[in-house]
């Protein structure tokens, strides 16, 4: 499952057409990818050391993958706020 690739932001007064913006989150993920890979390598190393040391908990790599899963699960989240002067819509797609 992939993380959300686009964020749609709409802001504007209720009586006029809102200002819409599509933000390509894909670019942010591409920038963060080297950091994630680096952290994953460190996590694997730490897990290996903990496993060899006989520690019960050695799931940091799995924890990192689950965190990425949580990020991926945000796809489809929508927040709509309607106030007197401004409407704000945020959608993750």
């Amino acid at each position: 499952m992939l993380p959300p690739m686009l964020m749609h932001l709409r802001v504007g007064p209720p009586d006029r057409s809102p200002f819409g913006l599509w933000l390509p989150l894909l670019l942010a993920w591409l920038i963060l990818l080297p950091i994630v890979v680096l952290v994953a390598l460190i996590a694997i190393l730490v897990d290996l050391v903990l496993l060899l040391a006989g520690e019960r908990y050695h799931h940091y790599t799995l924890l990192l993958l689950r965190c990425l899963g949580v990020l991926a699960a945000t796809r489809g989240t929508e927040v709509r706020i309607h106030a007197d002067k401004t409407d704000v819509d945020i959608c993750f797609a």
Partner: protein
Amino acid sequence: MNEDRARILNMLAAGKITAEEAEHLLDALESRTPADQPAPGSAPSMIKGDPTPLLNALPKFLHVKVDGDAGEKVDVKVPLALVRSGLKLTSLIPPQAMDQINEQMAQSGMSIDFSNFKPEDIDELIEALREMEVNVDGTKGEKVRVYAE
């Protein structure tokens, strides 16, 4: 009234499905048994076969709707996959951190041990959310509605 029929009508009453969807589900329910086949010339049902899996499908989104007293509205739609992923994540939190989380939760009046969550419990929890609906009416006219669909 059989159980499936009552469930469809309850979903309609709770606003979880539209009248049209309820009609299709009821049509499909009636067409399950050969004795209840629609009369010749009647409109064919849009849903073929047994609708039980459709009825038993897990909810997909958690809705939180807030209507303020001054006319402001907030509508948040959260995928339940996010809830599921979050709960699965809790089983992997290091024990030291989990102890602290459980302690803080207990201090806040929520004695839930997240380390004991199992995948089947999570599915059961999500399934139970289908029937859940929270309606809060404030004294100043504000309303909060939480439901899953």
